């Protein structure tokens, strides 16, 4: 396998301390990267160093540590901007995660623009985080949620997408890569299609950013969200990026310290972006950890990593497909290294427990995509999701554990 010979995944494994631990006496086979990724030592050490030597509040002290922390925080913003192809770092807003980013756009802005009969266009493969906020916004305003269907392979019906855009559509909210199926959506083309009608597009990049280089300028979208913990950074930190022309129109979302220019009992003037959205002391440690994660990812051979993940996906798909009574859910042409499957007579929940006994961590459940799984006629799936630090032994351990389980249930 030439690609994986170039990308040295043996070396990167050593960067992740948890990968050398054992689970129930078996080497950890971590295939739940879709839920959250593991953290390289560089991230763990950056957070440790921050608390040991650099801890201070930001944007308010004149002392040495506060200036250092402020610098670290703001340079992380610039790093994130560069990482996803944003020219103006002020357009990068730190939030708790993708969920908070979507809620900020839904309840902090779009909702204030909706009237009865307006439409929000989402797709059948959205994560609940990209369904429920829009549903609530629609309920409050009398707007209508429209849903782009998904075909048997788990690909978006792009013709239906175009047909569902109307002059009442106020926003398209779309997942870049499906967390349940792995399907990679043709985001750039869909954004262009929506823009023909001047409709803004929010992309949920939770599952694209960990797998592939992302350039929002090239994608052309108006909003982009992702979560730090899925891209090898800490939990509790995420990013909302939005074009200035939109963010400037948002009223303040939360208010308090750090987001004001001047407060008087007669009234308050607010900072511009990004400060306007970052009320209170932020998750400084999270931002520093996220910056370390981005540094880590940036020094990887990303094309090599992607090719390696793809080779793992192909290997796992081949080997699992050969198992009698196993059905893969999600067979899109363009797929990230996420593999959902169901088995005759064995419920995903039982699969999860069985694989766990062999040290193989997969996700069993609905993956916060209940409407999507309903579309495929299953209440749940087992999902193996690979990162660049997984290897072919991980695939084999998964396949062996599945085969063993099937014999047991036989």
């Amino acid at each position, binding site marked *: 396998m030439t690609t994986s010979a170039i990308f040295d995944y043996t070396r990167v494994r050593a960067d992740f301390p948890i990968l050398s631990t054992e689970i129930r006496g078996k080497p950890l086979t971590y295939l739940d990267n879709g839920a959250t990724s593991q953290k390289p030592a560089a991230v763990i050490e950056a957070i440790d160093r921050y608390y040991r030597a650099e801890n201070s509040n930001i944007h308010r002290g004149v002392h040495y540590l506060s200036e250092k922390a402020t610098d670290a925080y703001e340079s992380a913003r610039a790093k994130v901007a560069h990482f996803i192809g944003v020219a103006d770092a002020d357009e990068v807003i730190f939030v708790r995660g993708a969920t908070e980013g979507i809620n900020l756009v839904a309840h902090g802005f779009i909702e204030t623009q909706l009237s009865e009969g307006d439409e929000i266009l989402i797709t059948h493969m959205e994560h609940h985080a990209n369904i429920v906020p829009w549903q609530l916004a629609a309920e409050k305003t009398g707007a209508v949620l429209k849903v782009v269907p998904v075909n048997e392979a788990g690909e978006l019906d792009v013709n239906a997408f175009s047909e569902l855009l109307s002059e009442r559509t106020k926003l398209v909210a779309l997942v870049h890569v499906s967390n349940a199926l792995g399907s990679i959506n043709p985001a750039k083309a869909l954004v262009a299609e929506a823009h023909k009608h001047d409709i803004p597009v929010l992309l949920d990049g939770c599952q694209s950013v960990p797998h592939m280089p992302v350039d929002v300028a090239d994608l052309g979208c108006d909003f982009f969200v992702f979560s730090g913990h899925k891209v090898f950074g800490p939990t509790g930190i995420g990013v909302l990026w939005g074009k200035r022309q939109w963010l400037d129109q948002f009223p303040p979302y939360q208010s308090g310290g750090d987001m004001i220019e001047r407060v008087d009992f007669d009234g308050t003037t607010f900072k511009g972006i990004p400060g306007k959205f970052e009320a209170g002391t932020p998750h400084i440690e999270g931002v520093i950890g996220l910056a370390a994660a981005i540094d880590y990812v940036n020094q990887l051979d990303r094309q090599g990593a992607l090719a390696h993940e793809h080779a793992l996906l192909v290997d796992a798909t081949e080997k699992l497909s050969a198992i009698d009574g196993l059905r893969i859910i999600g067979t899109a042409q363009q797929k990230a290294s996420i593999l959902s499957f169901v088995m005759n007579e*064995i*419920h*995903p*929940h*039982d699969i999860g427990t*069985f694989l766990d006994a062999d040290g193989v961590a997969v996700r069993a459940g609905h993956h916060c995509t209940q409407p999507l799984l309903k579309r495929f006629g299953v209440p749940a799936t087992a999902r193996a999701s690979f990162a660049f630090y997984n290897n072919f032994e991980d695939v084999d351990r998964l396949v062996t554990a599945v085969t063993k389980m099937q014999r*047991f249930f036989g």
Partner: protein
Amino acid sequence: MSDDLHELYQSIILDHNKRPRHYGALTEATHQAEGYNPLCGDKITVFLRIVNDRIEAIQFEAACCAICKSSASMMTEALFGQSVVEGESIRSGLSRILNSNTDSSPGLETAGELASLAGVRKFPARIKCATLPWHTYQAALRGEAKTVSE
């Protein structure tokens, strides 16, 4: 395979999973409820026909894991023909077993087939799978149409 896993999926559980007893909708049910576990999407419907405080018939339908299905199947066998009061003592007996730690197991000897569910205690994430049918049974008795595992 580990001993814990063997204990969880012992042959009696696998047998109930493969050939669930009292399976299917019950015509002329006097009570019925749907139970749902939002965590994993497991879903079960329990049907009862209760006449003069006696469980004359009990059936279930489910889309759920092996633990949930076999627990439901054993439940129907344990409760069939019992009075509602006896049924409650069977239910609370099992509940005591599932909530006990693994060294002390009150009532394990007298629990009959239901004792085989005790293996679930080593798998905290799976206890709700075993209890969902019983919560749903209780909801049906109380006349609630739906219940959600808490």
